[in-house]
């Protein structure tokens, strides 16, 4: 296990370096580079810009600038927002809770529903249900999340009036129930794609396990089929799902951005778009790096978890 952990950590560290290099390259793509915001203000001369560049250390060689930037990233100095001068990390953390709440709620829905559909599909292979689930998953993957959100708002908020059309809470009423009611539509909308993906992979993982010898042995021993299903098949089929959960993290984050926009949910995705509209590049870059690091850590955690529950992985 120790060698596995070390190797996996080394891999993540290398990825982190590569991710930061890509991020730094992006930063220098911004129109006018990091100086863009100053170039916008009237009365700014080239001499002024040169002086600022000198002060910000932008005339140093690129590798030195990169090391400086990456060092700041590492030690928690992510720069300050152009909008209000607050530190980028504190701006992000102010919006983190809303996004994590949305992603958690949607993950619970997609894992629960996806597992159920996948298990039923695999145990009743080629049945009407299985075929409908297969087609349904492909259609669900083809529906644009934001459009599904619009349709959901139209039906459940505007026509039926059952649920609120957006925001995280009603002003003046921040009870738990109020949060819950506001959470329903966005988390279901965000879950749609992931239910589809999860159910397909779960079905496939189930079929892989069902064909294996130990399942036949368990049946031959005379175990009840329900017990074989739960103790042998589903338990083993869930292991690759841990990896999948890690791999799906970028999709989930992208989906959260779109969902937050449609439902005016005050999360990181909304913050990202707002910052783009204000040309607030430090926050834009901050969120981009933050999500990439989140994905990296998520995958690392998933791999360690898989190794913890499945000894075969550690030995490879």
């Amino acid at each position, binding site marked *: 296990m120790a060698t596995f952990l070390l190797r996996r950590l080394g891999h993540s560290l290398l990825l982190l370096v*590569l*991710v930061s290099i890509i991020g730094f390259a992006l930063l220098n793509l911004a129109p006018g580079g990091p100086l863009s915001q100053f170039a916008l203000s009237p009365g700014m001369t080239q001499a002024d810009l040169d002086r600022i560049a000198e002060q910000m250390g932008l005339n140093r060689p690129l590798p030195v600038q990169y090391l400086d930037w990456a060092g700041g990233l590492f030690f928690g100095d992510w720069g300050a927002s152009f909008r209000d001068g607050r530190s980028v990390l504190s701006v992000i953390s102010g919006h983190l809770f809303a996004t994590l709440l949305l992603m958690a709620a949607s993950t619970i829905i997609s894992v629960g529903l996806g597992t159920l559909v996948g298990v039923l599909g695999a145990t009743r292979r080629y049945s009407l249900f299985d075929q409908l689930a297969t087609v349904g998953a492909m259609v669900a993957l083809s529906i644009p999340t934001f*459009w599904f959100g619009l349709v959901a708002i139209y039906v459940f908020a505007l026509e039926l009036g059952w649920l609120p059309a957006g925001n995280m809470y009603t002003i003046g009423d921040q009870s738990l129930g109020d949060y819950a009611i506001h959470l329903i539509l966005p988390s279901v909308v965000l879950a749609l794609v992931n239910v589809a993906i999860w159910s397909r992979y779960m079905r496939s993982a189930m079929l892989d396990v069902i064909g294996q010898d130990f399942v036949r042995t368990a049946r031959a021993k005379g175990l009840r089929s329900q017990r074989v299903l739960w103790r042998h098949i589903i338990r083993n089929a869930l292991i690759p799902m841990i990896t999948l959960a890690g791999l799906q993290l*970028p999709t989930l*984050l*992208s989906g959260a951005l779109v969902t937050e926009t449609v439902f005016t949910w005050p999360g990181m995705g909304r913050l990202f778009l707002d910052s783009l509209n204000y040309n607030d590049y430090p926050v834009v870059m901050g969120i981009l790096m933050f999500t990439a*690091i989140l994905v990296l850590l998520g995958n690392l955690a998933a791999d360690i978890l898989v190794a913890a529950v499945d000894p075969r992985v550690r030995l490879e």
Partner: protein
Amino acid sequence: MTAIPDTRPKMRGARFLQSRGMRRFFRHKLAVLGLAMITLIAVACIVGPWLLPHDMLDIDIRGRFSPPLTDTYLFGTDEMGRDLAARLFMAGRVSLMVGVAAMVLSTVVGTVIGLLAGHFGGALSTALMRFTDAFLCFPQIFLLLALAAFLEPDAMMITIIIALTSWMEIARIVAAEIRSLRERDFVTAARVSGASHAWIMFRELLPNAAGPIIVAATLTVARAILIEAYVSFLGYGIQPPLPSWGNMLNNAQQYLDSAPWLAIVPGVAITLAVTSFNFIGDGLRDALDARSDMP
């Protein structure tokens, strides 16, 4: 001595349609349905604007917000009284073109990187694949929006940006496929007979990896159309007055209560087009690549 007749099967015309892969594809009902749907959509987008009585830029202020099937307005009109059907078909041209062009670009990039990594192995392979992994850490929409905001792009640039953020999966698929082909006898035979790296990569390995690449490319069209819709909806993709299915939905949320068809019509178009490509991709996977049944 008479020449030995060439009895190798030729894959041309009718023979190609009767080949095992094609027969399997056409047995796949959903794939055929997808092919029919996307053909219909493409023809409508190409021919539609000529047949409709209205130009997509004609403004009819008194007829604004007409619901579908009012007068000559098939799908109704938008907030400026422009014909929604005319705009939908013109937008379809843009969205489909962007989707297909982005697919071609990302498939080329992904295939080249996957070929290099798979064929050469060693340090080059490790470097390329880690680079691919690093790109995969960035959630696509975030990366795309940042690029689009920084570069303030036109339609062509959007296509390039979409390709730039979606080549990674094809690279991984191709690398894995090439790695499994590399040790096969026919490749060894080519190597010992002195074939160059380029010959082995493009004439020996690539044709044998065509199946998975075609499947991945088809699914990439579906993804690219969706992604274009996302960024255009968010205001950073195709910019008006050039319509795209995504930016048609841009304003739709404001009028959701009074004119829901503004949101419903383009959304259905996107869903149908993307579903078609996903169905076709699924059929092609069954026909060309029997091993995996992953989504």
